[in-house]
């Protein structure tokens, strides 16, 4: 400022006299470093002392930078921010508490898990992915002449199922929903592509009396096989083990239809 007010006449002459050379400036700087006491210098020094104190005080208070430094509008904005945030957090708290109560309130949780486990078990048995044991019958078929036909075997399986067989094993093959009876290139009866070897052993888990009764139906499985020249022997057992299992592949084409939303 000092420069400005006294320099203004010089500024206009500047093109003629472009300020001091560096040598002059440095000479003046060194001359300035001499101590010269006069009223003006002391007064100026008093001002610079004040400036120093104010500078430090301001830096200190800016460091603290408390809310006290802020203007009213800034404080209002801060408060607004904070209360919006509080609202959002409180909403979240309510939501989460609701979730927690819902989760805790499910008394039938264990029962649901138990039901799911049982359902899984029955699906596993149906799909033939696990070995099963239980009461049932064993049917030995001795057919050295190869007289048993696809139809006869299909009838047998059908009769066993009709009688409530829960798991069936023929030879070493578990009979499942997708099982099919066919013939191999030599003309022998096969199950799911596996040729059946003689003597044929059929295991079925279910109510033994019902199953053996189903086998003994006149004109049924036993009858027709005996009539064709094979020997059939049915024994009821209190426990028998069906140990043939299947692996379930992922269906390639069939997709479940999404259940309609319950209203």
């Amino acid at each position, binding site marked *: 400022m000092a420069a*400005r007010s006294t320099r203004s006449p010089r500024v206009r002459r500047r093109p003629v006299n472009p300020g001091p050379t560096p040598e002059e400036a440095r000479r003046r700087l060194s001359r300035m470093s001499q101590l010269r006491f006069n009223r003006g210098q002391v007064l100026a020094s008093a001002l610079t002392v004040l400036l120093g104190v104010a500078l430090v005080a301001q830096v200190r208070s800016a460091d603290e930078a408390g809310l006290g430094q802020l203007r009213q509008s800034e404080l209002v904005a801060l408060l607004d921010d904070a209360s919006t945030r509080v609202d959002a957090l409180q909403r979240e708290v309510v939501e989460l508490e609701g979730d927690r109560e819902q989760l805790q309130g499910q008394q039938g949780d264990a029962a649901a898990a138990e039901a799911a486990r049982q359902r899984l078990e029955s699906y596993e048995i149906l799909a033939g992915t696990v070995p099963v044991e239980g009461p049932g019958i064993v049917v030995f078929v001795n057919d050295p002449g190869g007289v048993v036909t696809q139809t006869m075997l299909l009838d047998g399986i059908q009769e066993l199922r009709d009688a409530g067989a829960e798991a069936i094993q023929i030879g070493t093959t578990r009979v499942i929903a997708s099982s099919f009876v066919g013939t191999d290139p030599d003309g022998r009866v096969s199950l799911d592509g596996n040729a059946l070897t003689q003597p044929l052993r059929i295991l079925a888990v279910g109510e033994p009396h019902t199953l053996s009764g189903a086998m003994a139906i006149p004109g049924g499985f036993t009858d027709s096989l005996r009539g064709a020249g094979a020997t059939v022997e049915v024994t009821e057992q209190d426990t028998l083990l069906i140990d043939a299992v299947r692996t379930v592949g992922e269906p390639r084409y069939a997709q479940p239809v999404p259940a309609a939303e319950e209203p």
Partner: protein
Amino acid sequence: MIPVLGLVVGIVLGLVLSPEVPVWIAPYLPIAVIAALDAVFGAVRASLEGIFNDRVFVISFLSNVVVAALIVFLGNQLGVGAQLSTGVVVVLGLRIFSNVAVIRRHLLGA
């Protein structure tokens, strides 16, 4: 030389005493400090050009501080305190920069 010593003494005093900024002065102090710094740099420049004048320095220093405080006060009254403060800081900053540039040219010739 004495003013430079005074500045140093002031900084030391401030560090030692660590004075509390009174609440009523708090909004004006930052701008006032920058205005005073502007006056100081102007004085250094004037010294190098051999036209330094104690009286002018004191008056410009005080008037700078007072005007800066006045502008902030006015801005606060008008409700544009923040913007006006920013404007004053920008202007003073520009002046400080240009003064420092002149000082540099005087001392280093570049």
